[in-house]
C-alpha cells in the first residue's frame, strides 16, 4: 500500500504525545494496579469478622470489659479485645491488642464526646464511620457484626442509615441492648425528631441485615432508666425492612439498664446469635 505521509511533523508529534502520555501514565498505573489487587485480595480472602461494640452515653471504651471476660470464660478460643477511643479532633487512640490468628476479635469504639442527645449521636455516628475506615485500613476485614448498648444502638442506627454504604464492608448482624429509639418518651405516639428521621431513612438499611433488639425490665414498663416502649419503637425502623428482626425482653437479676451488658442471659444471647457458628463449635460454654 503506497502511503504518502502528508504531515510528517504533526504525525511524529501526535505519536510521541500518545506514546509519551501512555508511557508516563503506565508507571503509576502499574503501581496502582498491583496495590489494588493486593488490597482486593486481602479483602476477599480475609477471614476476619470482628464484633464491633459501641457503649452508651457517659460510658467509655472500657464499658464492655466484664462482658468480654464473661464471653471468654470457659471457651477454648478467646476473643481478643481491641479498644479505640475517638477524640473530637479526629485522633484515634488504640489500646489492647488483636491476636493475629483471632478471626473474631471484639473491637470497642468509645468517644471523647460521649454525651446524650440527638446532635451528639449524629456526631458520634460520623466519628464511628471514620473509626471504621481506619480499622478497615488496618485489618482488611470485609464483614463485621455490631453490638450497641443503650445510645450505642442509636449511634449504630444513625451510622447504618447514613454512612454504611460508604464502606466496602458487609454488616451482618446488629444487636442493640436497651436502646431508647424514642429517647425517654413513653408513648410511640410522640415521636422524637430522631425516631422520625430513623423511620424516614429506613430504606437505606441493607435488607440482609439481621437485627436483634433486647429490652431489659425491672418492672413492667422500664429497665429503671429507659421506658420499654422506647426500646420497642425500634420495630418501626427495622421490622418489615430487614429480613430478620427479633425483639427480646430480659427480666430478673441484672436487668437494670446499666447492668444489661453484664447480664448472663444477654451474654448467652450474644453467644447464640452474634458469634459465628464456626467459633461456637469449639466453644464448650454452651454445652454445659
Amino acid at each position, binding site marked *: *500500500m503506497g*502511503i504518502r*505521509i*502528508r*504531515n510528517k511533523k*504533526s*504525525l511524529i508529534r*501526535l*505519536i510521541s*504525545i*500518545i506514546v509519551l*502520555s*501512555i508511557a508516563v*501514565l*503506565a508507571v*503509576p*498505573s*502499574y*503501581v*496502582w*494496579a*498491583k496495590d*489494588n*489487587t493486593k488490597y*482486593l*485480595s486481602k479483602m*476477599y*480472602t480475609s477471614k476476619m469478622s470482628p464484633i464491633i461494640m459501641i457503649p452508651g452515653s457517659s460510658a467509655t471504651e472500657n464499658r464492655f470489659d466484664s462482658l468480654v471476660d464473661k464471653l471468654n470464660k470457659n471457651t477454648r478460643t478467646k476473643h481478643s479485645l481491641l479498644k479505640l477511643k475517638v477524640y473530637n479532633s479526629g485522633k484515634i487512640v488504640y489500646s489492647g491488642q488483636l491476636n493475629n490468628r483471632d478471626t473474631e476479635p471484639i473491637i470497642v469504639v468509645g468517644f471523647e464526646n460521649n454525651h446524650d442527645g440527638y446532635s451528639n449521636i449524629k456526631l458520634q455516628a460520623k466519628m464511628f464511620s471514620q473509626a471504621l475506615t481506619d480499622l478497615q485500613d488496618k485489618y482488611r476485614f470485609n464483614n463485621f457484626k455490631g453490638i450497641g448498648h443503650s445510645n450505642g444502638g442509636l449511634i449504630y442506627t444513625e451510622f447504618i442509615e447514613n454512612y454504611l454504604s460508604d464502606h466496602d464492608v458487609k454488616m451482618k448482624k446488629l444487636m442493640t441492648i436497651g436502646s431508647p429509639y424514642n429517647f425517654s418518651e413513653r408513648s410511640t405516639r410522640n415521636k422524637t425528631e430522631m425516631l422520625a428521621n430513623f423511620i424516614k431513612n429506613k430504606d437505606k438499611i441493607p435488607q440482609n441485615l439481621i437485627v436483634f433488639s433486647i429490652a431489659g425490665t425491672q418492672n413492667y414498663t422500664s429497665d429503671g432508666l429507659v421506658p420499654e416502649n422506647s426500646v420497642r419503637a425500634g420495630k418501626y425502623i427495622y421490622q418489615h425492612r430487614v429480613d430478620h428482626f427479633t425483639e427480646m425482653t430480659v427480666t430478673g437479676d441484672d436487668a437494670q439498664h446499666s447492668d444489661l451488658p453484664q447480664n448472663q442471659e444477654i451474654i448467652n444471647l450474644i453467644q447464640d446469635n452474634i458469634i459465628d457458628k464456626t467459633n461456637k463449635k469449639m466453644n464448650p460454654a454452651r454445652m454445659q
Partner: protein
Amino acid sequence: MMRKFADRLVWFRRRLFFRASRETMTILIPFLIIGTFSIVIANSFLTPSGFGASILHIGDFVDNFKVINRVLNLITSWTTGLLALFASFKNAEVTARLKHNETRFVGLAGMITYIILVCLPTGVLPLKMPIDSSPLAAIRGPLSIQGLLLGLIVGYLVAQIFSYYEEHGKVGGNVEYKFLWPISISFLMAIIFGGFLLWLNNIGVFSALSTGIRSYSSQKDGLMLTIVGSIMTGILNWIGLSGPFDYSDATQSSVLASQNAIYALQHNSIWKVPYPFSQLALYHSYATYGGVGATLALMIAIVIMTRNKKDLLTVRWGLFPALFNSNSILMLGLPIFFNVVYLVPFVLVPVINMLVAAALITMHIIPPVPFPVPNGTPGPLIAFVGTSGNFSALIAGVLILAMDVFIYLPFVKFNNHVNNIYRLTHGKEE
C-alpha cells in the same frame, strides 16, 4: 465504481437536512469542546475515585477540590448536557436560512417543540422541579449529545412547517402575529407525537424493550453477545444516539466483571476466569481506544493522510479527551456523525479488535481482564490496569492500536476524495 459511490455520497451531502446539520454541528463545536474538557478533567483528575487521583494516590487531596469538580460538572451539564436542545434551536434557524426564509422565530419554536417532545413521553414537567431531582434524569439523555439526531430532526421539521406556512399560508400583518400559527402547529405536533410515545410508554413497550436488552446482556456472556452489543453501540453512536455499552458505564463494574474479579482473587490467577469475553474484558479493554469506534486510531490515520486544516485542528482539540476515551469532539468536528464513509470502520474496527483479543486470550498469549479500573482510565491502559499490570496485555493493546490505524487509512483517503469532489463541484461551502 468508487467514483460513482463518491458521487452518490456527495449528492446525499447536498440534501438540505445534511447541509443544515453539518453547519449546526459546526456551531456547536466550541461549546462541546468546553463541555468535554470540563468533564474529562473532572472525571479523570478531580474525582477521588477517578483515574488521576487513584494512580497518583491523591484521592484525599483531590477531595478538597469538590467545588471545582462541581463547577466543571455544571459547565458540562449546560453545554454537552444540552447539546441536542441547542441543535434543535440552531438547526431550525440554519434550515430556514438555507431556504431563505424568516429566521427570527423558527429557532425558539424548534427548541420549545423539542422540549415538549422529550418531556411528554416521560411525564416530566421540568419547570416545576429542581434541576437535579431524579425524574428529570429521564430526559437528560435526549437533551444531551445522546439525543443529537432527534434534536436535528425536530429543528429541521419545524423549519419545514414554517416554510410551508410561508409558501402557502396567508402572509400579511405583523411578524409577531404572522408566526403564531406555525408555532402552534409545531407544538401541537410535538404534543400528538409525544402523546403517542407516552401511550407506548404507558402500555410498557419501552420498559419491556430495555429490560429485555438488559437482562439479555447481563445474564449471558459470550463473544457473540459482546460483539452484537459493540455493533449496536457503534451504529447508534454514528447516528447520534447512545448504545448499550456507552462511555459512561465503561468502568462501572458489571455483575460479570465482579464475578471474574472474585474468581481471579480466589484462585490467585487472572488466566482462568468464568467470563473471559465479558464487556469489560473485551470491549472496554481492547475496542474503545479513544472512545466508541476506536477513534484514537482514526486520529493518527488522519494525521498521516490528510492535508485538510480543519480535520487536523479537530484532531488537535480532540486528542486530550480522546486519550481518556471521550470522542464527541471528533464525532461532530470531522464529523463522524452521519458520515457514511466512516460508518464501516467505526463499527468494524472494534469488532476486529475484539476478535483479535479473544483469539489471543484463547491462545493464552494475553490474560482476560478481570479487575475493575478507575473511572477515566486511558483506553490503551485499561487492559494493563485491569490485568493487574500484565505487560503482554499492554503490548497487545499497542499493537492492536497500530493495526487499527492501518484499517482506518483507506477510509480516511476515500473521505478526503469525497471532500474534494464536494468542494470542486459545489464551491467552498465549508
